[in-house]
């Protein structure tokens, strides 16, 4: 073991890292209670609850958030379905080309977003597809697909697939086996991956810049532009609310998983 001094040093460094990670988040939360002077909510003035009482004051901001939520929902559903199918094939079957598929899944993660964004813009330009909500959805679902397939694959690897055979041996039909054994085993991993996709899509700015039309204002695009226009405290309010909301969802999913894990899949 590391000596007690080394141990203390590592502990301090780790705590420092976590503080760093949360410092800007603290700023966001604190500044949601600020009463700014002028157009930019960047200098602390005084405490107010006003912003929280009027979170939807800025129409443009509200519609940008709603637009992003819709895109994120669509993208995570498309990526969730397609990615899970790919993961199932890779874990449950051995087939020619499997390792190529593995490689194809990793490539989008090792390609800078600026490259994917500009190349997608060219594709849509070549095809004569006008850039708009649809092209944003397609682009987001593409990079989310990789994340879903890889995370679900990792989860499926750890499951005990002999349970399926056991169910069949005990006389369950294939459909019933799927419904009562396979599906419940697979679902928590898929839900987690889709949540991740949702937040990735919600937050994407670089690719979105290239594949969105002039008038399509996603939440990140709005925030980017707000740096030249006006940074209203409502941006901080809605961000804080979304943070609390997603943490709540995460907590719920943990509780839900704990509860239903009566059939505990073994670890590989």
């Amino acid at each position, binding site marked *: *073991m590391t000596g007690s001094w080394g141990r203390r040093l590592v*502990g301090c460094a*780790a705590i420092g890292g976590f503080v760093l*990670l949360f410092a800007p988040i603290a700023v966001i939360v604190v500044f949601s209670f600020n009463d700014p002077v002028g157009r930019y909510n*960047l200098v602390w003035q005084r405490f107010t609850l006003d912003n929280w009482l009027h979170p939807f004051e800025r129409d443009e901001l509200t519609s940008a958030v709603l637009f992003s939520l819709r895109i994120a929902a669509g993208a995570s559903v498309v990526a969730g379905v397609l990615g899970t199918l790919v993961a199932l094939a890779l874990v449950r079957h051995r087939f020619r080309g499997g390792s190529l598929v593995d490689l194809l899944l990793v*490539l989008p993660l090792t390609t800078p977003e600026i490259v994917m964004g500009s190349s997608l813009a060219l594709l849509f330009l070549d095809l004569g597809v006008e850039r708009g909500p649809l092209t944003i959805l397609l682009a987001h679902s*593409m990079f989310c697909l990789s994340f879903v397939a890889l995370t679900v694959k990792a989860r499926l690897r750890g499951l005990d697939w002999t349970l399926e055979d056991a169910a069949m041996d005990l006389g369950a039909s294939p459909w019933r086996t799927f419904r009562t054994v396979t599906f419940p085993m697979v679902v928590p991993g898929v839900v987690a991956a889709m949540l991740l996709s949702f937040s990735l899509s919600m*937050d994407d700015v670089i690719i979105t810049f290239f594949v969105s039309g002039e008038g399509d204002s996603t*939440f990140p695009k709005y925030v980017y532009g707000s740096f030249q226009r006006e940074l209203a405290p409502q941006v901080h309010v809605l961000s804080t609310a979304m943070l609390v909301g997603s*943490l709540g969802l995460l907590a719920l999913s943990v509780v839900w998983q704990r509860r239903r894990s009566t059939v505990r899949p073994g670890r590989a």
Partner: protein
Amino acid sequence: MSTRVGGRRLTPYLLVGPGVAWLGVFFLVPLWNLFVMSLSTKRSRYDFDPAFRWDWSNYGDVFGTYGTQLGRSFLFAGVATLACLVIGYPMAYWVAVHGGRFRAALIGLVIVPFFTSFLLRTISWTVLLADDGVIVRASRASGVLALLRAFGWINGDRLLDTPVAVVGGLTYNFLPFMVLPLYVSLEKIDIRLLDACGDLYASGWSAFRRVVLPLSLPGVFAGSLLTFIPATGDFVNAYFLGGTSSRMIGNVVQDRFLVQLDQPGAAAISFLLMLVITAAVLVYARVLGTEEMTS
């Protein structure tokens, strides 16, 4: 794994098909378009169908005009990756070894920032690094600013609009991508190995250097890639935190493509960026000897 009957041999392809087609159409085909466009010429600014003619001059222009920004991007991303490693390793190690029952929750904290807007977090750094803020005042008092000036990384008496702020922003934004893979590789290490080192009279440091570090190399590899690659192409941090003298290649591509409408030029830069990154990744893999760990 259960045995599959002959009729089911198609099943994996049916499962994989839609996803692969999706990535083919929206990832691979566009890369081809990018390559073709990088060798095309536009007759005018509003020529939306540039002619393909093996026009390598676009590539020549990149080095001539944007060599500085390209070099700067790799430098910034490299320093940020190193900083992420230095900051992230203790975090991952501490949670993996001393986290105990709370390991999962503690490592979960690392992804919490993902649930707030990446842009707004970056903008928040302008508040933290403000000229009369705590960080700037503390670095001034402790002589850190003077030190940075001596190295030529900042000019004046502030941190905002300097390369230091941009590298700091990149480090901050991609830190979770370093910590998570490091944690995954550190978590797998059998803690009894460390006890064994102690029993064999290895000091803490040599146990770390000879046992823990080699076993965590896959995490170092994956984490560095997941940090370095997005950091190289990023333009958000340079936009919010850097001045005109710290523009990165991402800013150039964005401007060329979306503002100047010079798609061939932008395509050449993008394609070149990808090639250089791929080469860098291969060299890095060779150095670490972890070629089989890419997946």
